[in-house]
């Protein structure tokens, strides 16, 4: 009897123990029954949100649909993309020009969508180049990178590209402090404290055309600026930057930049800085940086090298910058939708400090300072602090908001997302991520009006999350439904490169503005060919310009002779189609660059230098039509000094002489 009872107890216990564990502890642990229907978007149906995800070390930006996780497009930004001819066509090469010359790669960390009145407006999305400091603007009517501006006096453009609430400025803070470009940089590295400075760039954005220009830079003490966000609403006019390495170490930062108990969040009164600039207090300083713009009218980019930049040295003014102590190497610096609460996330901390904008203002008015850091007043921690979220997890990184009074913070070390209430700082829910989450994204989650509904966690470690693919794995993202009290995981999807920050906006804000074709009548490319009858081949010295057209299903001309060794051949291919989603491609054997992919009404140019005598085939690379495989041609290359005349033809009915025979 006794044994029986024991056994029954064991059975019961087993059942209890097994109940939770019967949800396998790995993949599907947090998934409940209706997850599939919540992320299911039926074939032919559209997603609710566009999601713009940084591509990290791919240098690109990807666009996903939410909640399906469908990859809609990879937008080439800072890295060449042979698939789209980005950085390979003559038209796009200038986009990747810098003061260092042509740079074919970068590391895109953060995306930020333009806002009007603090609300996402769906016009542009900005991205930052982390390695060779630049900011790019992508036009959301074409999903193309239309502008890239380089940042002088900067290195490791990490605290970027965050915007003010009317997109007055895109702000870019340097991660690495460095000697200014204009100074003699040949100094001992251990003279960091004397010679290294941290620059914050304020890039103005044209209200209507989006055109960027560096309005001014603020020269600040040498530290590492990590992340930032603009004030909004009541705090509009201020910007908040997390800083680490306030030890001003120049080596083994892993140890040496983690010495202090607190680093800082730097509050910057940019309206005040604007006033000083207007009053002529800034200095024009020599600098060299590229400003590249792409025109949909000419289908071409131009690169301009700028030669000076306006700099305001914050050391001379005590009412622009203030330091707010923030525990343990702060990373994320996020401002809630009301603009009152500033959340600092110390990546080595086990608490989240929340600062109050009102208290910061009062502290400044009352001079509640605790000494200075390199000439900048340090506000007393308690004087700025609204409160701390206690024991939220380990290693807070980034915080997003749902507009309903809740904040969501990612924890890298404890690999979880924690939902907490901004007012009472109480933890409301926590969910694990797979694994080691970095950034978070709630649609509109850093604006005055978040759209809420979903949260995406961008994880740094994938391990066993998907079918394995050798040593290198795609990074994973997890989608959560946050419409209820508890966060619910509903989807996993792999991403491009390494996603850092991402943004999302309702589809309707963007979908209705899409360009379908470029009007051929409005094509202002210098080498456009607006009809087959105008197609031709023109020799200018050793340069051969082919004015070529593409339309279903042939190129005109498709036979070219009289090209000689030593020539540079430029294929200027105009896609004559005026029909949505009918691009043509162009490739020629042996070309040491890439293909062209030419949209309807567009002209693109491939430069080709023949390497040997012979016949070289060319063809359309995009399956444009039933006769796509017929869309081809030949070029004959003759020896230098050959007397084969320049000739071109298409079939037997187009102008140009009949092909020569040997």
């Amino acid at each position, binding site marked *: 009897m006794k044994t029986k009872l024991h056994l029954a107890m064991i059975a019961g216990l087993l059942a209890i123990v*097994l109940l939770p564990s019967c949800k396998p502890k790995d993949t599907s642990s947090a998934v409940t029954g209706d997850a599939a*229907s919540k992320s299911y978007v*039926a074939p032919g149906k559209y997603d609710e949100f566009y999601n713009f995800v940084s591509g990290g070390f791919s240098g690109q930006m990807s666009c996903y649909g939410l909640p399906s996780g469908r990859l809609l497009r990879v937008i080439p930004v800072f890295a060449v993309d042979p698939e789209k001819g980005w950085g390979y066509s003559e038209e796009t090469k200038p986009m990747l020009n810098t003061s260092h010359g042509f740079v074919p790669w970068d590391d895109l960390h953060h995306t930020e969508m333009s806002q009007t009145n603090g609300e996402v407006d769906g016009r542009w999305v900005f991205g930052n180049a982390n390695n060779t400091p630049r900011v790019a603007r992508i036009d959301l009517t074409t999903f193309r990178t239309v502008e890239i501006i380089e940042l002088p006096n900067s290195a490791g453009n990490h605290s970027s590209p965050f915007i003010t609430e009317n997109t007055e400025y895109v702000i870019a803070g340097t991660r690495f402090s460095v000697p200014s470009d204009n100074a003699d940089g040949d100094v001992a590295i251990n003279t960091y404290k004397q010679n290294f400075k941290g620059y914050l760039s304020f890039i103005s954005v044209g209200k209507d055309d989006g055109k960027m220009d560096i309005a001014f830079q603020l020269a600040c003490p040498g530290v590492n600026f990590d992340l930032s966000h603009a004030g909004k609403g009541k705090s509009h006019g201020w910007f908040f930057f997390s800083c680490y390495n306030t030890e001003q170490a120049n080596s083994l930062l892993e140890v040496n930049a983690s010495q202090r108990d607190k680093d800082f969040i730097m509050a910057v009164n940019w309206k005040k800085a604007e006033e000083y600039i207007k009053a002529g207090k800034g200095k024009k300083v020599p600098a060299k940086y590229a400003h590249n713009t792409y025109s949909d009218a000419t289908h071409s980019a131009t690169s301009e090298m700028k030669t000076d930049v306006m700099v305001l040295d914050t050391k001379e003014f005590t009412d622009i910058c203030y330091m707010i102590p923030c525990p343990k190497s702060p990373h994320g610096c996020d401002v809630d939708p009301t603009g009152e609460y500033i959340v600092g996330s110390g990546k080595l901390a086990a608490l989240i400090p929340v600062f109050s904008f009102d208290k910061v203002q009062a502290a400044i008015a009352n001079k509640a300072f605790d000494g200075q850091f390199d000439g900048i007043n340090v506000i007393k921690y308690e004087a700025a602090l609204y409160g701390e979220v206690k024991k939220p997890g380990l290693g807070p990184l980034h915080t997003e908001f749902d507009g309903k009074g809740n904040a969501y913070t990612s924890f890298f070390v404890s690999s979880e997302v924690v939902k907490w209430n901004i007012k009472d700082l109480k933890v409301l829910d926590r969910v694990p991520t797979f694994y080691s989450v970095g950034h978070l994204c709630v649609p509109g989650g850093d604006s005055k009006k978040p759209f809420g509904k979903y949260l995406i966690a961008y994880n740094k470690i994938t391990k066993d999350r998907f079918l394995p693919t050798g040593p290198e794995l795609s990074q994973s993202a997890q989608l959560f439904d946050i419409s209820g009290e508890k966060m619910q995981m509903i989807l996993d999807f792999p991403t491009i490169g390494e996603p850092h920050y991402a943004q999302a906006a309702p589809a309707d804000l963007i979908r209705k503005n899409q360009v379908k074709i470029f009007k051929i009548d409005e094509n202002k490319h210098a080498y456009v060919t607006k009809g087959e009858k105008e197609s031709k081949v023109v020799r200018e010295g050793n340069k051969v310009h082919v004015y070529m057209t593409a*339309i279903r299903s042939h190129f005109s001309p498709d036979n070219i002779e009289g090209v000689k060794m030593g020539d540079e051949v430029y294929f200027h291919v105009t896609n004559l189609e*005026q029909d949505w989603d009918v691009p043509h491609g162009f490739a020629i054997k042996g070309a040491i660059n890439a293909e062209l992919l030419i949209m309807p009404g567009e002209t693109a140019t491939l430069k080709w230098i023949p390497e040997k005598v012979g016949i070289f085939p060319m063809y359309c690379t995009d399956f444009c039509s039933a006769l796509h495989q017929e869309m081809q041609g030949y070029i004959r290359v003759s020896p230098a000094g050959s007397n084969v005349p320049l000739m071109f033809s298409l*079939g037997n009915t187009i102008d140009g002489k009949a092909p020569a025979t040997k």
Partner: protein
Amino acid sequence: MKKLTSLFASMVVCLSLLLGACSEEKATPDPQAEVSQPAPVGQSGVSDDVSQKDIVKVAVGSKDHTTLVAALKAADYVDVLANAGPFTVFAPTNAAFAKLPAGTVEDLVKPEKKETLRNILEYHVSVGVYKTEQFTDGQMLDQANSEKVKIGVKDGKITVNGATIIASVPAANGIIHVIDGVLLPQTK
């Protein structure tokens, strides 16, 4: 001992029940949701008022081709002609159809004659773009129904199987040659 065994057995049952409950918990899309999807529309249904008009849209916009458009719809042929193509379409006018024996068109658009009608329409379509200047006298074109039509070029007049091309209209996905007669294939 017997009791013990039965206890173990009941534990196994209990376990398998639990496991079963687990697998039932796995999310599956609601089949109902898929069933309730509306019938898919082909490429002719793409809403696009920016692009150049394709062959179907050009035909729909022509008051002289209402019979042809009705026939294309009856034969479920509009999606094909809204495809990337490219196509050369010989498009008989309403007057051309009117020349057929009385009742012919009315008969062809009946559901049971769909295959016959489709065959006739396909006889008016060639894959590829043939502009008027590319036609030569005696040229044979392969049509979509696997038969050939014969082109005539005489005194500046171009004919196809004897029907005259009275106008040519470029479209996004090919070209339409308007003809004054209906082309009748050998096959049914």
